[in-house]
């Protein structure tokens, strides 16, 4: 829009930033950024405070009585007596285990679903067979089924297989594909040049060789984006792990956070510990975002044409 106006008034390169007309939009934008980002600081500030000092200095912008007791508590490194003294519940909680479980859950499901989905996407974009588009439509139609609807029967299935509270049962429904991953990779394969593949085909290479040696290596960038998006979705998954992985050895971070919160003393919650736990749960995704932020941001708005 600003470019349009510049054209009309004839000044082509008007400096953007210091125009007085942009003070209001910039103020609003900064406000939106503050609302998005400042809560993260508040979590850190709370985690580094002690519960006693928090109550007394509830509005101080800096941590009150700087202390890492809350993190020790979250990782089960405080004795129950120490934890109680600092306002914790005294119940044993160990986020190392949850962190490990979340890492296994997200990594295994991501690697497997992305790989199998890419294989399927290859069949939907490069191979020619009857009913191909109908089957593809069936895959896409599954996005219409709300996860809660399939979660109940899936729970029964996993229970009947005797896999409740096992890592196998936890990852099982997510191992094979996600409709989005198939769609995403298929769009990319369709946009990829086929020349190299056709040359290889003339040389007698079989499809699986073409897939592994030509197609997959050339798709490294979209595969990485897809893996990131899938990993973060899995990391944040709450409902399924809540149903099938309720005991301590298979509990993931999101579920652990809920349990930690419900154990917290009702009258005077362990805010410091809760925020330390929240930060620990958020950190892996924040780190990924710090490294791959640009890739993630640019993938939003992907609609199959870019």
């Amino acid at each position: 829009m600003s470019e349009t106006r510049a054209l009309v008034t004839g000044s082509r390169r008007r400096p953007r930033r210091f125009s007085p007309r942009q003070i209001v939009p910039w103020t609003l934008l900064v406000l939106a950024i503050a609302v998005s980002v400042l809560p993260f600081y508040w979590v850190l500030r709370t985690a580094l405070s002690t519960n006693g000092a928090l109550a007394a200095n509830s509005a101080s912008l800096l941590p009150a009585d700087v202390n890492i007791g809350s993190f020790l508590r979250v990782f089960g490194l405080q004795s129950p007596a120490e934890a109680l003294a600092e306002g914790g519940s005294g119940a044993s909680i160990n986020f190392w285990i949850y962190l490990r479980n979340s890492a296994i859950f997200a990594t295994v499901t991501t690697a497997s679903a992305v790989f199998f989905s890419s294989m399927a996407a290859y069949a939907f974009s490069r191979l020619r067979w009857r009913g191909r588009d109908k089957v593809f439509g069936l895959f896409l139609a599954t996005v219409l089924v709300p996860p809660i609807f399939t979660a109940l029967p899936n729970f029964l299935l996993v229970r009947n297989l005797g896999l409740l509270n096992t890592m196998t049962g936890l990852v099982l429904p997510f191992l094979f594909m996600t409709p989005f991953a198939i769609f995403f990779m298929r769009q990319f394969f369709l946009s990829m040049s086929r020349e190299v593949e056709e040359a290889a085909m003339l040389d007698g290479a079989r499809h699986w060789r073409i897939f592994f040696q030509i197609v997959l290596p050339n798709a490294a960038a979209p595969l990485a984006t897809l893996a990131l998006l899938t990993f973060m979705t899995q990391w944040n998954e709450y409902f399924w792990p809540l149903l099938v992985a309720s005991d301590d050895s298979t509990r993931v971070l999101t579920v652990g956070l809920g349990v930690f919160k419900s154990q917290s003393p009702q009258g005077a919650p362990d805010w410091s510990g809760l925020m330390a736990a929240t930060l620990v749960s958020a950190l892996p995704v924040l780190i990924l975002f710090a490294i791959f932020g640009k890739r993630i941001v640019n993938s939003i708005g992907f609609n199959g044409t870019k």
Partner: protein
Amino acid sequence: MATTTIVVGRARAHRDGGARLRRDRSDFKVALFFIAPAFVGLIAFYVFPTLRGLYLSFTEYSILGSPEWVGTDNYERLFADPLFWNALVVTLQYVFINIVLQTTLALGLALLMHRVARSTFIRGMLLMPYLMANVIAALLWFWMLDYNIGIVNQIIDWLGMPRVAFFGSQEWAIPTQAVINTWRHMGYVALLIFAGLQSIPNTVYEAASLDGANPFQQFSRITLPLLRPVLALVLILTMTGSFQVFDTVAVTTQGGPVNASRVLQYYIWQKAFAEQEFGYGSAIAVILFLILAAVAFIQMRVLRGNESDLA
């Protein structure tokens, strides 16, 4: 995360997906090998449970023993169940607040970004809440909105207004959940709209300016109509997502106070898992499924979200 973007792309996918390959023989056997794992997943964890869920909704099944066919009993019971209607009403309130609040804020934010700042860094900061799990967003705001020492109530206090029991009062429980959800999704939705804004060619605006259209006219006559496919997508995302709210409710209010935040999915979970009534829980899930399908269908029809005026 991005699962839902599919809805928009589907029509397009069908169009250019079809007839690009012209080879003499069919690759059926090879294709079978390539789609086998995904197909197993499709059948075992999508198709089969969908059918089984439908079946269970006509049975009485308390996890022990085996399902017992009861015909439409569950549905009859459901229509007479005040808690079900309450859940429906509460969920609709939540959906409504989300649509209004989230779409308006995100549209405004997208226009701001389009006008003054297009840097990836700024977009990244606005996207940060979206990357957090619902549970994290819920706990973060559970603390910031705490009645006694939460920072928001401190500020309200300074401003000389009475403190608000965001989670503890019946009238605030649902709006509070909606605000948390809006906080988490606002930046993401803004980025979707922003991508739509960027696809509108500048020449359209130039022509409008030459014809003397003021910025307001440009917005209502050009920007909004051309954004229709993106806005349709955003509405579907917001509605289907909001109808399935669970995580934030489960970790903060647990349906309370009283029944004020007992949303549909929470009620389903409660019936099926806390009270072991799988048949009844499945029946409510069928209703939720039907609502979502209707929403998606109506929106694609009415808003013609899969067609673009720019093509």
